[in-house]
């Protein structure tokens, strides 16, 4: 059995190419039928997400990569030379490991994201429903889904914030729990400030206030976020009811003084106030963070938090890799036995042939037998063949896990006088990236 994966992802190909080579869900059955129309692609599956397009194929004969790339070129109507430099190819246990990594989310753009597991699941059910998966891909993908689930339940890979704006949102949640109904005050215009505001909005923040030195600018930003513009002079009173303040105004002097915040805190009755100061130089006067119930994070603090998170993430990735190693080892033992399938099939076919032949003879000789008698004899001969072939079958599967599997299979073939289409042991084919 040969297993190969050929594809491209966000690391190897630019977005324009990934877009061109993606298979929309509605076209998936058509793509699979087209891909499988070549007789040698016995089992195949297409995994297509916005960050990757991969073709998994399991064949009895040594697979021909050119067939898959030719299909890609035809199906996506793109010259092979355009995408071939961006393709990676993994075979055998490397292909299994690759799929396990994909399913656990450590091959994703955003490490540990949850969507990919569903996308793998959908790709698998699309392929299996249209009858393009067999023993190999079925057990491979069921295992991969299992590995993906294990990675998410047994490690922290699916948790944690990994960018400045998501860290800010996560900190806000550590203060306010539910961000629903909270008010954010955005002071100043700037990409980072707006990005943070977007993240907070996505986390469920209810009201948005926008203050800017030029009121017109505040109005236009407020319109974009569905918020309310306020004048710069109203900031001190707004601090009384806003919960999160994002500042990114460029100013030589701090905009918000310690006294202003102290006054606001008296109105707030100890309700916490969270400042996210993205401006350099800072908009919040140093000393504000000393006030009780006030939390001030500037860009450096947020950056440091991101670092902490990514260190934690590295640990989680290595835990996931441990799981993958463990599952890979277990799976490969089973995978090797798939190589025995052609031999076993040939052996069983031969036995069945002999049995049918002998039944025919019997039929000619003993004409007096009734249909019922013949049925009984048929069942008995079947059972004899079944019992005789049982032990060799198990033994052949076991041979596949030995080092000298090829030689052993050869002797089996000699012994029974069979010659399956392609008796080769699972070879470790080279990878290309």
């Amino acid at each position, binding site marked *: 059995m040969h297993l190969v994966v050929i594809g491209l992802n966000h690391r190897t190909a630019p977005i324009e190419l990934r877009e061109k080579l993606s298979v929309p869900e509605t076209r998936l059955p058509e793509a699979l039928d087209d891909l499988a129309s070549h007789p040698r692609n016995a089992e195949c599956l297409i995994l297509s997400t916005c960050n990757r397009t991969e073709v998994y194929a399991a064949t009895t004969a040594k697979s021909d990569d050119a067939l898959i790339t030719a299909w890609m070129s035809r199906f996506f109507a793109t010259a092979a030379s355009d995408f071939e430099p961006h393709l990676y190819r993994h075979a055998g246990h490397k292909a299994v490991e690759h799929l396990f990594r994909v399913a656990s989310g450590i091959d994703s753009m955003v490490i540990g994201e949850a969507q990919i597991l569903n996308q793998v699941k959908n790709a698998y059910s699309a392929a299996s429903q249209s009858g393009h998966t067999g023993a190999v891909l079925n057990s491979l993908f069921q295992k991969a889904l299992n590995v993906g689930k294990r990675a*998410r*339940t*047994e*490690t*922290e890979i699916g*948790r*944690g914030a990994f960018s400045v704006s998501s*860290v800010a949102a*996560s*900190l806000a*949640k*550590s*203060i*306010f*729990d*539910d961000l629903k109904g909270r008010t954010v005050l955005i002071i100043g215009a700037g990409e980072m400030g707006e990005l943070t505001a977007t993240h907070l909005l996505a986390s469920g923040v209810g009201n948005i206030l926008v203050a800017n030195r030029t009121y017109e600018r505040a109005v236009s930003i407020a319109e974009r976020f569905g918020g309310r513009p306020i004048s710069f002079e109203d900031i001190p009173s707004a601090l009384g009811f806003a919960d999160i303040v994002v500042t990114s105004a460029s100013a030589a002097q701090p905009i918000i003084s310690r006294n202003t915040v102290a006054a606001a805190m008296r109105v707030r*009755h*100890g*309700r*916490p106030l969270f400042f996210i100061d993205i401006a350099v130089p800072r908009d919040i006067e140093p000393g504000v*963070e000393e006030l*009780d*119930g006030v*939390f001030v*994070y500037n860009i450096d*603090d947020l950056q*440091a*938090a991101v670092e*902490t*998170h990514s260190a*934690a993430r590295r640990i989680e990735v290595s835990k996931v890799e441990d799981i993958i190693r463990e599952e890979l080892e277990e799976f490969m033992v089973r995978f090797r036995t798939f190589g025995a399938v052609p031999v076993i099939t040939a052996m069983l076919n031969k036995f069945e042939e002999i049995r049918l032949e002998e039944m025919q003879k019997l039929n000619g000789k003993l004409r007096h037998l009734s249909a019922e008698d013949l049925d009984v004899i048929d069942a008995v001969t079947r059972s004899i063949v079944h019992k005789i072939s049982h032990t060799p079958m198990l033994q052949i599967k076991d041979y596949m896990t030995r080092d000298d599997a090829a030689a052993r299979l050869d002797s089996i073939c000699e012994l029974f006088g069979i010659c399956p289409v392609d008796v080769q042991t699972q070879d470790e084919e080279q990878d290309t990236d």
Partner: protein
Amino acid sequence: MEHTAAAIDVALLLYGCACALYLWSILGGATLIRRAAPVCAALGLAFHGAAIGGIAVRLGRAPIMNLFESLIVLAWVLVALYLVMERRHRIAALGAFSTLISLCMLAISSTIPNSLNEALVPALRSQWSVVHVVTCLISYACFVLAFGCAAAYMLQAHILKTKRASLLQTRLPSLDAADQMAYKMVSVGFPMLTLGIITGSLWAQTAWGSYWSWDPKETWALITWLVYAAYLHVRIISKWRGRWANRLLVAGFVCVIATYIGVNFLARGLHKYNW
């Protein structure tokens, strides 16, 4: 007797496991750990409850008439209260805290010499006794959990202030959640304590002939009541939260310990019945 003691031991073991699992899940354990912790605690609670039932059957009355008995019941109420709360809002730190406290209470109770068959002094035989003790114990459990919330609040605020963002910060309850939960606990605990004091004074009237006699336990109960009244005042009337609310919760917790245990060892008074 062996059966109840064995059940208590099993409960001790399970609470220990639950506490370790809660701690593990705070420090970054996987989902499996997070799910196992409450299961472990609930199993412990079942064994614990069976032990209490066994003791009650043996005594032929509610097992809440001395320190040994009430510690066991209080430990049970505490874990039960946390598990009920967890259904609404999961705070693993509080799970670790309540199972640990229960564990300690069970361990302490096992060091108290107890014969489990002594007859009650006449003063303890009253219809008010069960209501009085049960309401007091529920209020104590509430206050212990409220203290746990305050501790979690202060720890979280400290982490956020010192900017040591980590997994711990995402696993501790948010300031808001801790504050809300503490408030809920006190709003259950305070009426319970009020009821406990009222039924206690009715009981005192029948047992000692006086509603209130400034016995040390009564005095401390009153102080405790005043502290939580102050907390509720601060929280509801002047809508303050944060630093002052937390300080009152800590003070209240100290008063609860003084009322519940301290008085028995440090002072002599009417409440001295094996307590």
